[in-house]
């Protein structure tokens, strides 16, 4: 009862235009003042613990930063050129290349909206020029962009891992097969639509172009290898050298070096406009000055600002979680659900429904931080694999991002494509159906998620 008041308050405050973070924080504080004996100091303590006690969340600012260096550094453009060289000649080729680009960028970036901005801002315009309708282009990118959180690295996975204390490295591995699968399902759907509607196809530019574009994009693509080899090592041959959190920091430094000294599209060696960027050999002192260059400061600031808005929500969600735990809500919810005789299947349906509804109002990380601790103990009782549960949640978040009224990718696509929200919603609809089918498959075929982590890291053990 008391809990429903809390959740109604959270949603109500959000709907009248209170920032999400304050809606969560204010509701938690009022709940605590009314129902608990705990002090206001404990709220401040919990706020600081959001950082001090959850060091795995550090991966969030670092992956955002890596993605920022990659976007400003011209990596997206090179990825798109490579994608077009590979699949652009097929019927609907540019659209398929768009999906392919999103998949590759998703493997560099931890966020979906960032993927849409990086790829969509270039591809949507190109598709319209090539003779596709704007709606179709927007629908494709809007959906493919959601892969940003399913294909590792992923901010949402980091949040899930922090919320329920599972390994981030394991979650990342679990996202690989579902991510590829979702991407290919989208490509197939596009290909079928393209055949039926006779959409444009591009020219096959030859293997030379594939090779040349791969070479160009190689420095950016190698970041994927840096992250994966760094976290997992080469099994049996070479040990890993950093934790997933550290991998994010290493990725940032690497992306900084690529953007400044290899692509030179930012920093002291960049030249505005058409001119050839300067060579490092001629200006070796830039190895030092790049750290203090205005572009570096701007990239750090942009990433920092995004971190602030996301983490402020997450930290307030952690306060809500603390207040709920203090009142033993998760324990009681678990008891009630188990007493009601829910089986694993019904339970997973319920989780999907809760997340799909929640996703209509809430920013994904904050929602996950609240829902995961509530459903996790029940899932463990029912014998559901925690990693599988995590992937189900991530796919739900993806769908939440492309459904109104609150869909991050809808907003972003409508902004990037310059078209009204409702047209984007309609444009996204056919592909949304694909993602729904995908959600059902992922929910009821756990091995899609667990195969790779079990293979590489052994079966997950629940010790709590």
């Amino acid at each position, binding site marked *: 009862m008391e809990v429903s008041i809390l959740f109604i308050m959270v949603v109500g405050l959000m709907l009248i235009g209170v920032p999400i973070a304050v809606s969560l924080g204010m509701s938690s504080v009022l709940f605590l003042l009314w129902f608990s004996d705990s002090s206001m100091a404990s709220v401040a303590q919990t706020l600081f613990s959001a950082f001090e006690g959850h060091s795995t969340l550090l991966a969030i600012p670092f992956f955002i930063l890596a993605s920022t260096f990659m976007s400003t550094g011209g990596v997206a453009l090179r990825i798109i050129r490579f994608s077009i060289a590979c699949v652009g000649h097929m019927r609907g080729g540019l659209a398929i290349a768009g999906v392919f680009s999103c998949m590759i960028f998703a493997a560099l970036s931890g966020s979906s909206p960032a993927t849409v901005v990086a790829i969509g*801002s270039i591809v949507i315009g190109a598709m319209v020029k090539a003779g596709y309708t704007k709606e179709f282009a927007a629908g494709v990118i809007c959906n493919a962009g959601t892969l940003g959180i399913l294909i590792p690295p992923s901010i949402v996975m980091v949040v899930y891992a922090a919320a329920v204390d599972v390994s981030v490295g394991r979650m990342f591995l679990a996202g690989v097969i579902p991510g590829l699968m979702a991407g290919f399902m989208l490509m197939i759907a596009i290909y079928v639509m393209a055949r039926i509607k006779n959409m444009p196809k591009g020219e096959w530019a030859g293997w030379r172009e594939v090779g040349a574009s791969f070479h160009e994009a190689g420095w950016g693509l190698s970041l994927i290898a840096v992250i994966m080899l760094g976290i997992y090592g080469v099994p049996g041959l070479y040990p890993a050298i950093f934790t997933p959190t550290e991998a994010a920091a290493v990725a940032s430094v690497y992306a900084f070096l690529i953007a400044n000294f290899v692509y030179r599209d930012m920093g002291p060696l960049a030249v505005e406009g058409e001119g050839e960027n300067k060579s490092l050999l001629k200006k070796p002192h830039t190895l030092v000055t790049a750290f203090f260059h205005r572009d570096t400061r701007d990239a750090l600031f942009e990433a920092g600002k995004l971190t602030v808005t996301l983490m402020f929500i997450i930290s307030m969600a952690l306060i809500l979680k603390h207040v709920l735990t203090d009142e033993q809500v998760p324990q009681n919810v678990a008891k009630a659900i188990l007493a009601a005789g829910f089986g694993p299947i019904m339970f997973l349906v319920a989780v999907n429904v809760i997340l799909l509804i929640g996703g209509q109002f809430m920013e994904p990380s904050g929602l996950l931080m609240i829902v995961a601790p509530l459903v996790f103990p029940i899932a463990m009782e029912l014998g559901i694999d925690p990693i599988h549960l995590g992937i189900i949640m991530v796919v739900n978040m993806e769908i939440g991002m492309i459904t109104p009224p609150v869909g991050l990718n809808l907003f972003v696509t409508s*902004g990037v494509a310059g078209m009204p929200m409702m047209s984007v919603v309609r444009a996204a609809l056919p592909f949304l159906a694909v993602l729904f089918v995908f959600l059902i498959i992922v929910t009821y075929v756990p091995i899609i998620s667990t195969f790779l982590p079990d293979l590489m890291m052994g079966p997950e053990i629940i010790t709590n």
Partner: protein
Amino acid sequence: MHSNKGTSLIDEIEETLIAIILGAMTLITFANVVVRQMDGNILWALESTVFLFGWLVLLGASYAVKKGAHLGVDAVINLFPAKGRRALALISITICIVFSFLMLKGAWDYWANFANLPGTNGRWFPLGFEDSFRGKGWYETNDIPHPAFLGWMEGFFNEGVAYEKLPRLVPYMVLPLSMALLLFRYIQVGVSVWRGDIDRIVASHEVEDEIAEVRERLGEHG
């Protein structure tokens, strides 16, 4: 509606501070990886990075208020006419002001004893300062060595006894500081809403600025 790009000196300072903190976090973590590869260690790397993380977000929160960058839902308020939007914005900002006031009290109460200062009485509204309390100026962090330039703190907060590690009062100081800034910024926004300069206090998504940039670029070329 918001996206006023950083121009003032205060903006410049806040933005540079955000950049410096994130840069420091990245370099410390990176350095720890490198040093560990050489069989060394930076034992204070994790704890100090985590504290910087807290400073980044908590100090950044008030900057984000100033820039209207905090995420929210505007689907419903868009349905209202201008007058209704103003009313909702006034209610919203009042809630934000009350919230940051409560958080400031909580933050002060939490931090004060670590600095041998009195917390406040009262459950939610501060009714004056505590008469007696146990100071916690002696309470140290886990891994960060106490830097020499903060040696003066020992006389102030630890009865002259040397600190082995940085006292907790230093990292925790950001709590009252940031909550006071947050309250200040929300009051400023409240004034803007009252004047009718703005009709909402949220951003609908996290990449508003980037999209504005993309629009600008497309506008230029096409």
